[in-house]
């Protein structure tokens, strides 16, 4: 059974179509990065998966219908919807008490152990903590829950680079065990390049690219083309071309690696560069190419 399975998932807010019939399948044990410009439908997709909004189409999360079985689903699903949603009046100790009180899968000792590594004091109120500490606290609560699916929507927005790095390190080292599934959206794509196992681009309510990271590395190459090979390189139909320090950098999709190596310096593109390439070009072509 896939952790998340959607067919023809659709959501419209009045005349605005937030999700335009997407198909999606996330297997157990994957870490999916969901990337898209603002208003692309990422949050809507996550809200539907979390049972926060009604939707049209078929959607199963851990075999359940999220909208109608939300209360049950939330025992196995955890999410950080945004930074700073922890209630500001709450004390750290109260947050621990409360989650321990209501969540059957919460391991308090685990949360305490994680907090012990931070400077967060039990008696502090959330409003007294820095933004980074609030994120740490939220992560401590979430990681101590033995959930099967963790959804993170911009979990590091507004945090400084140390906290951001630490956030993903903790997630990978202390939480992810290969059987849980994680879905993460972020604008800081460079941070998750080496975290995620699968990548998905979403734009205007449609999935425009869907690939595993192994596929990604086997399929996309960026070549810093030597000036004398530029014409030859362009003939191979790069999906994107940019200039850096007077050199042309061309991004190729599904072009033979050996052939490209002759044209210049070869490397795996960053997700950010691919994003710009895919979003800049015709979205329809990109999806066609992905299939």
């Amino acid at each position, binding site marked *: *059974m*896939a952790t998340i*399975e959607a067919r023809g998932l659709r959501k419209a807010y009045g005349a605005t179509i937030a999700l335009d019939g997407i198909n999606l399948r996330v297997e157990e044990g994957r870490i999916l990065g969901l990337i898209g410009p603002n208003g692309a439908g990422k949050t809507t997709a996550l*809200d539907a998966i*979390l049972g*926060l*909004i*009604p939707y049209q189409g078929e959607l199963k999360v851990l*075999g359940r219908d999220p909208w109608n079985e*939300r*209360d*049950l689903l*939330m*025992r196995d699903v*955890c*999410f*950080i*919807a*945004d930074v*700073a*949603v*922890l*209630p*500001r*009046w*709450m*004390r750290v100790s*109260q947050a621990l*008490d*409360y*989650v321990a*009180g*209501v*969540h*059957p*899968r919460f391991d308090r000792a685990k949360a305490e152990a994680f907090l012990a590594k931070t400077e967060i004091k039990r008696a502090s109120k959330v409003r007294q903590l820095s933004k980074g500490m609030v994120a740490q606290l*939220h992560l401590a609560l979430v990681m101590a829950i*033995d959930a099967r699916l963790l959804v993170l929507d911009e979990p590091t927005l507004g945090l400084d680079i140390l906290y951001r790095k630490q956030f993903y390190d903790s997630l990978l080292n202390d939480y992810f065990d290969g059987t849980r599934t994680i879905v993460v959206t972020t604008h800081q794509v460079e941070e998750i390049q080496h975290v995620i196992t699968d990548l998905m681009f979403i734009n205007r309510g449609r999935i425009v690219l869907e690939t595993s990271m192994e596929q990604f590395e086997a399929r996309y190459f960026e070549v810093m083309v030597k000036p004398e090979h530029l014409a030859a390189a362009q003939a191979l139909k790069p999906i994107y071309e940019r200039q850096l320090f007077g050199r042309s950098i061309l991004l190729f999709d599904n072009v033979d690696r050996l052939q490209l190596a002759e044209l210049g310096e070869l490397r795996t593109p960053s997700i950010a560069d691919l994003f710009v390439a895919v979003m800049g070009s015709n979205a329809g072509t990109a999806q066609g190419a992905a299939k």
Partner: protein
Amino acid sequence: MNTETKQPSETSFESQAIAPMSATRPFYWSVRRELWENRSIYMAPLIAASVVLFGFGMTAFRLPQLRRNALALESARMRAAIELPYDAAAMMIMFTVFIVGIFYCLDALHGERRDRSILFWKSLPVSDRTSVLSKAIVPLAILPLLTFVIVVATQLVMLLLSTAVLLPSGLAGTTWQLLPWPRLSLILFYGLVTSALWEAPIFAWLLLVSSWARRATFLWAVLPWLAISAIEKLAFDTTFFIRMLVRRLTGGFEEGFVVVHYPKDAHVPVVDRLTQFDPLKFFSSPGLWIGLVIAAVFLIGTIRLRRYRGPL
């Protein structure tokens, strides 16, 4: 897809892990959470009680003189005069709690959307029904219970204080003789229960508004009713609606009793005898049941609304 084959193992795994948690636990912790967040629930009546006691203490030196005056009156008025400070204390605390209840309800489901914490609450396995009911129980049960405890404690302190002050003048015994304190407590308890039931639709309405309105919850809570009253007055020149509202708002304590309306100048409390308890009248009054049905409808609406509601 192999959903069918995986289903049994999944369910057993679930029942194993979930077993130690009873159904009422999330409710219990949600109520505790309300008390953590809204300390005014108990702070406000405690402050009101302190003010009452302070005032009573400040005027204690006049007590012997007042008591002598009271003892000169005929029996009903005498009793009333002795009871007056105790009733006033109860009323002041009850009024404070009523105000607290109104503002608590208006903010209960609005605040969590305003500060976005609803996203945190919704990330936990607590249903919207549990969340809403844990908020509704505050004005319907917790506040009345708290009122009872605080009023009784306040009156007890007043009683001891007055005994101490009256002791030198030899009048201390008269308080214990003439003040029907246990009876007052019983009347208070019964009155608090009946008013909680009577006022249930008010609080349920406030919760509904709080889960629905994007801003200005107080105005949304009040203006529609005033508008209906005004339209009624203009269209039919009647005041049926506004009178109904006023009775709902202020009648809570009286509904459960046979109220004797003494002449105003007599200063005789409207309720001072157990014989005035009238549960039969109260529980057979259509007004009560219509109110409770409306309250239930409002609460169901609130639960449904919360499901669709995200942060503001």
